[in-house]
């Protein structure tokens, strides 16, 4: 028997089971046992996902580590898992960030810590499930279920306006997903009673049907990414979410929508993708230009970073819909890098928030005087956010601009303005928070990072630099799968 059998199931169910164990242990005997259990389970999950990388065959675009058993045979629903180069990095990213969230929540969550950690563990498994599912219903179940822990995290551990933020989040994502389910049902009947995503990809579809399916997917995914104009839930959700929630939301959940485009929209509706590419490019450019300008004027650190996330995701969607290998690979690199950088930025805000209990930029100034280690690390992440070469943020933006220039020079020109605006909002934030003299007693009393915080931010810093200085191994994994995807999207599926 193959040693790799069941790895994906283990990656999904280990943290979910762990979550319930932590929940069962609870806070009764203090939060210490729950914390350690959560740490052990998240660490084990990360260890389980590592063989996915070491055992991954980069030369094939076929699904690997496949697990396939019937689930509800009468409906042809299967428990069907498998990964390719497009999904691999996001599984590792998810398990890695969950571990960091557990470590960072060690002391600074006072309220019901066991439940808090359990929610993250369960969410970890469900998110990994989304990236592995190859059956539409299984995908949908994971997709919807992962929202529940996130609702809880924002709704229970969130800030003062958490109810408003959660309702908004709920409305948006729920309405979006319903249409996706309808599209799945349509595809089920058209593909000869199958929920197999790989079968969907081969099913011929008329031009009109493709447009409708594409639009249904678009609404579901555009909300998640989020794309303009369905983005306004994100700044609110981030502002209210606790640090860990913001980290997972920005670093992993936003990637779900983008992943959906790659896994579903492009291969299932290639003709519609081409036909509506102009719309997608236009929306992406609006995100890059309009959202970046909004980010500049924000006074709340989390809002600023949330808007910056939307602008960065604009590069991702732009990269998908110019249909060049460089741009799509660049978009995936941008997703991954944004996973590191936005997570780190939200951790940084969390570090400050834990000490000062405010996210208002004006409350800070001169932090570098009292927190030099923190200032150096945040500088690194700020530069990642700016997309400076040598950091991970550069790789994706560079490749997307390169890949876009050929088919759409004007789109590349407009997207490249993101270089200027990105630097403007990030470095202006940095200047106001970190630089300057200390004028407030609260700032003067700040203490620099403790060992745990150095571990969390330092490990992200290493990844940001590693990917920036040597992205070759990161790119190698996605190569064959993107090539395959491009071949799928370049062939018409309209029955002649």
């Amino acid at each position, binding site marked *: 028997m193959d040693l790799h059998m069941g790895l994906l199931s283990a990656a999904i169910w280990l943290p979910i089971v762990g979550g319930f164990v932590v929940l069962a242990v609870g806070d009764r005997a203090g939060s210490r046992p729950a914390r350690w259990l959560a740490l052990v389970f998240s660490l084990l999950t990360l260890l389980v996902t590592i063989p996915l990388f070491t055992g991954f065959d980069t030369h094939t675009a076929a699904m690997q580590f496949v697990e396939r058993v019937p689930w*509800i045979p*009468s*409906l042809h629903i299967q428990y069907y898992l498998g990964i390719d180069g497009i999904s691999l990095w996001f599984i590792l990213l998810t398990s890695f960030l969950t571990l960091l969230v557990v470590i960072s929540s060690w002391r600074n969550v006072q309220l019901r810590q066991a439940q808090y950690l359990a929610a993250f563990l369960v969410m970890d498994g469900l998110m990994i499930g989304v990236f592995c599912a190859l059956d539409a219903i299984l995908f949908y179940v994971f997709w*919807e279920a992962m929202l*529940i822990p996130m*609702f809880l995290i924002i*709704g229970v551990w969130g800030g003062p306006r958490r109810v408003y933020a*959660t*309702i*908004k989040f*709920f409305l948006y994502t*729920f309405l979006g997903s319903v249409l996706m389910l309808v599209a799945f049902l349509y595809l089920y009947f058209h593909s000869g009673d199958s929920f197999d995503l790989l079968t969907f990809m081969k099913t011929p579809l008329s031009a009109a049907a493709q447009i409708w399916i594409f639009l249904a997917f678009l609404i579901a995914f555009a909300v998640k990414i989020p794309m303009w*104009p369905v983005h*306004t*839930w994100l700044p609110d959700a981030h502002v209210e979410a606790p640090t860990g929630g913001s980290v997972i939301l920005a670093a992993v959940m936003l990637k779900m929508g983008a992943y959906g485009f790659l896994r579903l929209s492009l291969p299932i509706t290639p003709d519609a993708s081409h036909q509506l590419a102009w719309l997608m490019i236009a929306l992406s450019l609006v995100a890059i230009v*309009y959202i970046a*300008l*909004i*980010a*500049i*004027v924000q006074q709340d650190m989390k809002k600023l970073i949330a808007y910056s996330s939307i602008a960065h995701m604009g590069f991702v969607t732009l990269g998908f819909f110019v249909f*060049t*290998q*460089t741009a799509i*690979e*660049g978009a995936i690199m941008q997703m991954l890098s944004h996973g590191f950088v936005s997570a780190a930025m939200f951790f940084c805000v969390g570090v400050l928030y834990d000490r000062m209990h405010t996210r208002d930029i004006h409350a800070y100034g001169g932090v*570098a*005087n009292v927190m030099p280690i923190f200032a150096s690390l945040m500088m690194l992440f700020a530069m990642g956010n700016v997309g*400076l*070469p*040598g950091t991970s943020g*550069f*790789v994706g933006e*560079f*490749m997307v*601009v*390169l*890949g*876009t*220039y050929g088919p759409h*020079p004007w789109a590349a*020109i407009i997207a*490249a303005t993101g*270089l*200027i605006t990105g*630097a*403007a909002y990030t*470095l*202006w934030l940095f*200047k106001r928070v970190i*630089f*300057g*003299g200390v004028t407030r007693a609260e700032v003067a009393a700040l203490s620099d990072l403790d060992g745990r915080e150095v571990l969390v931010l330092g490990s992200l810093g290493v990844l940001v630099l590693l990917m920036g*200085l*040597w*992205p*070759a191994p990161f*790119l*190698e994994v996605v*190569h064959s799968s993107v090539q395959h995807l491009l071949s799928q999207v370049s062939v018409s599926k309209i029955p002649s």
Partner: protein
Amino acid sequence: MWIFDWLNALPPLWVYFLIPLAPLAGSLVAGLGGWFLGHRAHWAPILGVTFAFYLALFVLLQVLHGRTFYGNVYTWGVFGSLSVPIGFDIDSLTAIMMVVVTFVSLCVHVYTIGYMHDDPGYARFFSYISLFTFSMLMLVMSNNFLQLFFGWEAVGLVSYLLIGFWFTRESANQGALKAFLVNRVGDFGFLLGIAAIYHYTGSLDYRTVFAEVPSLVGQTVSILPGHPWSVLTWIALLLFIGAMGKSAQVPLHVWLPESMEGPTPISALIHAATMVTAGIFLVARMSPIYEKSATALSVILIIGAITALFMGLVGLVQNDIKRIIAYSTLSQLGYMTAALGASAFSAAIFHLVTHAFFKALLFLAAGSVIHAMANEQDIRKMGGLARSMPITYVTFLIASLALAGIPPFAGFFSKDLIIEAVGQSHLADAGLAHVFLVLGALVTALYTFRMFFLVFHGQPRMDEHTRAHLHESPWVITLPLVALAILSVLTGWLLMKPVGLGGFLDSSLRIQPTFDTVGAIAAHWHGTAAFLWEGIQAWPFWLAVLGIGLAALFYLVGEGLPAPLQRIVQPAIWVLRQKYGFDVFNQIVLVRGALLLGRRFWHWGDQALIDGAMVNGSAQLVARAAASWRRLQTGYIYHYAFVMIIGFVLFLTYFTLGRG
């Protein structure tokens, strides 16, 4: 030479790779170990840079013997069919840059021991300047556009960090931010230029790209519908936008004067001698592309000439010693740029080298003055310093004479060659550019010696306390001054023929015969002495002498401009004090415009239109529904989960039964 013998046994790639790595190692030691090294933090950076300088000399000797190198260290990434390496292209142009960068960097490292001695950020400063040296070396040694951009952005980052080095000062932070953002405008063009190169040649590797260039001649691109442009002109201009940002050419020059907020050693190293010349280096390196576009060359020529004259004029009305030198740097970069436009690439590089020495000297000497004056930078409060600081005085004078273009100092040869080459050019506007550059000679001499006389001669104008504490700087400061002063005297004469006339650089440059202005000068070459003899019979020299004479008349003999003259030139002075309004325009139109637009988008777009009209309208509906549900259950989230499961079960039942 025997001191290099052991290096011959090493694989060449090792030697090349060690050159940038040595300062990087120094930077890491100082940066990470600074907390316990304290005032010993300079040892590792100085060793690293000294080693890099030694290796750079070795490489220069190798190149002189015809041993160049072109190869890769590792593959950065593969996208599509394109493999992008990190690698080196070592030829004569690179070798010259490497020696200049490492030598000036070494001088500045030593100088810093004295200059930054009492600064709490001592170790951090050394870490930054060594990191800068690493980045600059990666930039000039690159064999591909990606690594070039890497180095390009990395030097920009270090520049940003060093301008804002004293991060408690608002003006320093403002200057740093401005420098970064203006450079990003340049990078915007640079990045698109790289994208266009990738699109048209399918490569980012210098050799492959240059080999493809001839096949692009005649191809056009319609960026604006109905206006076909030559592809090569388009690429050349995009790359030049990058060069304008880094080398501070009008209108992207606004960041350089404000970069003077940084400590003086980096003003010398980064904002005078090396980083700001990266744009010059870029265009020279890309000569195979630029030579195919007369349009691009014309644009470069006129922008360079405008910068050379008009930024020099602003230098006339400045009173901060560092800002005068900064405007002078802008002006001299303009001369280099104009030379590039006239296809006199070798003259541009020649001036780059001499300027690196005499301008670094001028800055470091000014730093020595500032040090003695207890951080006073206003020349109106100086005067009569010559007696207290003899070494600084003499070296400052040498640098000033070199800058003003007085023979036999280095600047004379390189500047005269540029002016003459532009005079030979047949490009559109070359005549006007030539006039600007000739007039620039007068302006240069005038602002330089106004500063010189006000600082070192006349009555002391500082307060008693400062006056009592005037002193010559310690040897770690004066030693680099003397070293640079020697080079500011010698390099003009020595490098005139090999570098200025391009013999040594020929293998790195591609010049169209019809544009070959330096070639035309070389054709009538009768030796350096004859060039000097012709030089002192020409306009630029006499204008420089006139400039020094006027400066002496007004500021050595007299006390400022005579009143009647003052009244006549008052409007002009006002315009110059406003720096032609660039800053006002940028602040009001660009900065405030962007902020206003951002606020409008946020309040009207996101908050009013999307959230107000679209979202909250429907949200209120749901909120009402949720409110009624809340009476049944404790919270809507659990409810949602519940509804979802029920819904899913219903859905399954429907399909099982309905289709059964």
